[in-house]
């Protein structure tokens, strides 16, 4: 089972690389057909990625979200899912050109991690694991897409004004609202992550909040996005100003995920 998952992972990594190239070709050559091919390729890789995660879960005997490798491949999966939904929902193929390098980076990070399956420690043997970590990957995926959209908002002015960009990149107001929708999705799921984590911590350790670095940085991330949501209500803070906050928010997400494990060990050190 795990060997098959290994093979699937290699195919997925190659697939995301091909997807990135295809998306770049779409932007460089400005051919509509390439965008459609890229979308369906992304959908195909997503299905294979889902299958690989299921195989990993069956092979490991637990939800495949308990170590750095499993979480990073799940993170890439969530990025792929949320970007597919947003491309489809908002008829926005250029989003794929910006999100696929991020997915590729995350899958590259996963490839560098130890893929060994380890037995779970007693505190991780809980049904809350599935809720807590799956809500976290959806939140991170949504914030990742918001980050990509914010980059588009920030660099939109630098793009050559021609028919292609005009057709494929929405007007600033709409772009800002799509980014806002993505942050909303992330915010809801991050809140769920923090709440399910607190309930689980209460059961496992008897303390729902203990200012562990991971908890603290999740709160910092939550606050940054809360500031983003409030700033958007103020005149003159939509568009680029809000986009900067979404970028800072995603830097916090990455620090919460990778930086905290590397520099600030705590009870989440296994993650």
């Amino acid at each position, binding site marked *: 089972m795990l060997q098959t998952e290994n093979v699937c992972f290699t195919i997925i990594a190659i697939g995301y690389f091909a997807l990135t190239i295809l998306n770049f070709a779409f932007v460089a050559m400005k051919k509509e057909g390439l965008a459609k091919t890229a979308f369906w390729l992304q959908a195909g890789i997503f299905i294979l990625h889902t299958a690989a995660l299921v195989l990993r879960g069956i092979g490991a005997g637990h939800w495949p979200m308990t170590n750095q490798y499993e979480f990073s491949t799940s993170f890439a999966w969530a990025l792929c899912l949320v970007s597919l939904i947003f491309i489809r929902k908002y008829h926005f193929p250029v989003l794929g050109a910006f999100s696929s390098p991020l997915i590729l980076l995350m899958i590259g990070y996963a490839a560098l991690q130890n893929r060994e399956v380890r037995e779970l420690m*007693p505190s991780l043997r809980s049904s809350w694991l599935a809720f807590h970590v799956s809500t976290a990957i959806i939140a991170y995926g949504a914030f990742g897409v918001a980050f990509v959209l914010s980059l588009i908002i920030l660099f939109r002015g630098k793009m050559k004004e021609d028919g292609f960009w005009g057709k494929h990149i929405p*007007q600033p107001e709409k772009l800002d609202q799509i980014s806002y929708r993505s942050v909303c999705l992330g915010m*809801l799921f991050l809140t769920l992550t923090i*709440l399910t984590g607190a309930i689980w911590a209460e059961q496992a350790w008897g303390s729902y909040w203990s200012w562990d670095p991971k908890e603290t940085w999740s709160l910092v991330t939550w*606050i940054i996005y809360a500031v983003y949501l409030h700033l958007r209500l103020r005149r003159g803070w939509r568009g680029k100003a809000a986009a900067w906050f979404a970028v800072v928010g995603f830097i916090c997400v990455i620090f919460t995920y990778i930086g*905290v494990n590397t*520099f600030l060990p705590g009870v989440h050190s296994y993650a």
Partner: protein
Amino acid sequence: MHPRSPLHTGNTFMKKIGKFLSSMPFAIALLVLLAAACALCSTIQQGLGYDAYAAQYGERTAGLILALRLDDAFHSWWFIALSGFLCLNLICCNLLRLPALLQRIRAFRSPEKTAAGKTDAAAKGTGDPGKIFSALRLPKPTEKNQGACLFAASNLPGFWGAWICHLGILLLILGFALGQICMKQYTVYALPGQTKEMEDSGLCVTVDDFRVERTEQGTVRQYTAALTVSDPKTGTQQSTQASVNAPANVYGYKFFQNSIGWGADVKVLKNGEELQKEALCAGEFFAVKDKPELVIYFPAFYPDADSREQGMSDSTEPVNPGYLYQVYYQGQILGMNVLRAGEELTIDEYTVLFENPRHYTLIVAKQDRFTILVLLGGLILLAGLVLAFWMVPRKVWAIRENERWLIYGRCLKNGALFRETFEKAAKESGFEPCLPEEDNRKEENM
């Protein structure tokens, strides 16, 4: 007229204070400060002393850390003050917003006041306007002016989203703060068979049994402690079981299987005769029965003392047990060393033996009646977020002018996205989308 609220009724100074405390810039400043404080303090290890900080950061920084209470930042006066101001901001904001919010809702769902407000999308044509209402999943429109005006609004609970979020956050902070103040928490560690008092709670905990379940690979699957909790005052007792992720709940306390450690039996012989036998957890000590100035301290146990000596990681099973001891006489240390299994320590006529190494369990007993308030706050916050993000208030109104219908749409947020949906619905219903400003007579006709 501006709606009156409790904070609008005082004198000018109070009004200014109320306005400042409830203002969004104040909220944003507090949030940014809290985020920065959390981020900074997460990088400083909490609860260390001056020496540890001085070794890590230098003397001057260590002094600064202690002066600013950064060693216990999340309980420091300034962090509590920031959280307190945030609560005050949330309370003022919700109180101040309430009358205005009610007025906004009334205005939004009032056909009469609608036309004067902002419009996000418009369409015109001679088709059936009902089709647009149903395409946008709006309720059946109400008719005015003998059917010349149609009006429908939906997702009105969305107006309450932010207000409910604030209420949820307030309950969360309040529940957490009250929990921190009123919570009773005790730590009990004991070897199987031992009974320990839970300090001032009046309860006693007996560890009847402690099991470590292992997987086929030898890793730990579960720690389970069989406990008997007794109340000597009432003479009652209850037996229960606590394991990781499954706390026991008796006498109003939750008992958590928190961690484990090593313990052993320590025998004292006097001239070859057994004088005393104590079950000690690592970290405990006892005085010799007939010579109380002689104290035996058991700081640590090494399951594999050989590996440890060679600098390798210790075993999880007692394969080559080593017992670290310290002997004190009248408060002065006499000596310390590691005793291997079967080795004896002789002090004058006394012989000390360590044997039967086994795990002790560390149980945390906790009573926090405000956890439920935190949970309630969390659920309210979630409900508020769903309302705020996914129940965006919107309305559509149509005005008949001769044979032609002018249809307008308004969405509280996401105007650009709503415009697209509206225009798509309009086209599908046989209407022609137009600019909202195209017909400025809408106000007169409504």
